[in-house]
């Protein structure tokens, strides 16, 4: 990428949860067209980063900045961030009983389109065709659109539903928070194929994961290692393999040295 400003730019970010500092100066830039993997052990601050990016009010920003296309994201509420093209695939998606997937997608898409200057919602026929196409990509049954959001979904269904939302809303930056956790091999393959199909020059992906396993399916250009609230090492895909071989203790040692 040659543009002056990265699509998503995180600078020296400090975040606290219930008064306890979790992120302690994290900097990261993600451009459209790039796939970044952020790896780290439990408790390193991975999910805190995901929630802070999306504007979860339980996460308190105590320092630093986040910009999306040059806009100060910290000034925006969660819905404004969503409309501007930031997307979070949740690690634990919440059930909304009584609200169908289709209804939810329609409202969300209408809000997103409005932000992009399209005043009118997509006509119902086109909307249905779009959802159908994206569901087919994720090998979901048509009946899925009529089910209530995450209500009684299996682990794999929840993760697929997250990627379905991403496919319909077409964000500029997608943060996938441990999308691989709790998935069996088949589900992991389907979800990964979905992400791969969606990635391209118009999408930047930040893939947050504990394990190297998903990187067999989704190939990042950049890998970062998060330990104790800071990125301690960045590199290319080979870094993931080193981590897999040597474990997180290895980077902890680097950090200590």
């Amino acid at each position: 990428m040659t543009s002056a400003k990265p699509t998503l730019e995180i600078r020296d970010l400090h975040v606290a949860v219930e008064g306890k500092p979790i992120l302690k100066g994290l900097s990261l830039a993600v451009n459209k067209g790039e796939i970044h993997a952020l790896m780290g052990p439990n408790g390193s601050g991975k999910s805190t980063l995901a929630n802070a990016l999306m504007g979860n009010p339980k996460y308190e920003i105590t320092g630093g900045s986040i910009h999306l296309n040059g806009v100060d994201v910290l000034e925006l509420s969660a819905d404004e961030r969503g409309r501007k093209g930031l997307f979070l695939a949740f690690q634990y998606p919440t059930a909304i009983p009584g609200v169908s997937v289709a209804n939810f997608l329609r409202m969300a898409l209408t809000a997103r389109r409005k932000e992009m200057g399209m005043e009118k919602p997509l006509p119902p026929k086109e909307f249905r065709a779009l959802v159908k196409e994206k569901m087919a990509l994720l090998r979901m049954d048509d009946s899925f659109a009529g089910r209530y959001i995450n209500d009684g979904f299996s682990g794999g269904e929840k993760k697929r539903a997250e990627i379905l939302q991403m496919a319909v809303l077409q964000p500029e930056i997608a943060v996938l928070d441990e999308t691989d956790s709790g998935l069996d091999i088949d589900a992991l393959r389907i979800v990964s194929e979905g992400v791969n199909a969606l990635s391209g020059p118009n999408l930047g992906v930040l893939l947050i994961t504990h394990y190297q396993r998903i990187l067999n399916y989704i190939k990042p250009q950049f890998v970062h290692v998060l330990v104790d609230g800071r990125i301690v090492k960045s590199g290319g895909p080979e870094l993931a393999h080193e981590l897999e071989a040597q474990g997180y203790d290895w980077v902890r040692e680097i950090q200590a040295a």
Partner: protein
Amino acid sequence: MNEPQQTLDIREGYKEKFGFHDDIAPVFKSRRGLDKSVVEEISAMKGEPAWMRDFRLKALEQFEKKPLPNWGGNVGEIDFQNIFYYLKPTEEQTKNWDEVPADIKRTFDRLGIPEAEQKFLSGVGAQYDSETVYHKIKQDLADKGVIFLDTGSALEQHPDLFRQYFGTIIPPSDNKFAALNSAVWSGGSFIYVPKGVKVDMPLQAYFRINAQNMGQFERTLIIVDEGAWVHYVEGCTAPIYASDSLHSAVVEIIVKKGARCRYTTIQNWSNNVFNLVTKRAAAYQDATMEWVDANLGSKLTMKYPSVYLMEPGAHAEILSIAFAGKGQHQDAGGKAVHGAPNTTSSVVSKSISKDGGRAGYRGLIKVAKGAKGCKSTVRCDALLLDEHSRSDTYPYMEIEEDQVSIGHEATVSKIGDEQLFYLMSRGIPEAEAAAMIVSGFIEPITKELPMEYAVEMNRLIQLQMEGSVG
């Protein structure tokens, strides 16, 4: 979401959409307050037979003798002598909207009634203060013998049928407000569906209070003969005034062998209306009675639609929605009385409270001795939208028979920050996200409604939620 938003007045959109009033000159208005002479005057205005006048006067005595209920809401605030008990808005009732006086017609146009009649109704009645100004049923149903009239006209045109059933399900002595209604009743619907006739599109009545300090006392009587089917829908709105109005209806329903009746209410009175209504049905062998009772408006509602299951195989279905915002108290619920073996009932209640409102479920399941094999399930869910709102559940059970199956489940939940954050992260603004969660919460009931009413319900929920999420 980062900063607490200002809590705005609840139902702020109500005024513009429903809360307007018209300056009409009624053809007759009784003086303020209630006594024997007012009751006699109402009866005389209507040219009623002597038995009805006597019925009214007896009921007035009952009303004066009975104490106010000391449970439920604060009915002590009602000033019975400050109310107008009868107001006749027009000289004649009509079957043609063009003959309805222009300013009254404009009201019903704004409420979308004539349009709905064209699109998806079998018949419409429109009551304005005390009298019905418009009433019409589709010709093919009239040809099959279906009667859909305002209750006063039914007394005139079908005196025998009327007298056979009137007051048999809810006698004036039932409670203070049933006695009041029996004394001063005016308007309401009378429906008779002959044996085997299925009315496939709903019959709708719309009740509008326009005058200030008005008392509206409609009286509805529905008889569904053997194997017949009918769906009756009522809607209600009123202008916003600083002082209170009273709405106290009585609804009696007889569902005969193998028949089915569904009665849907979308109550959206303004927040200055006391809504104290007695509704009861008797269901006979293999009959089904369904109450779908949604209460969004009023200052205080006390209403517990009941079904008396009189013969084996009868089934009762009670779906109740209560939404209380600022300054509102919804004391809603239902009753199923199992008076015969092998009868079944199901009660689903969803209550929502916000901005300090109070909503709840009050219900009774009663099984008489010897009514073996009865089944009943009650499910009450409450959703609280903030810290200072209140939800109550009073599930009474009087089970006098052992060989029965009774289930009861109750939940109370708060609107979840996680749910809001999840929806908002997808670009949906906070108020819309909260409305979505509420619509989802009542979806088990709205999915039972015809599409047009489900859409209307969700629109009203949206209106309740507008600009008021803290």
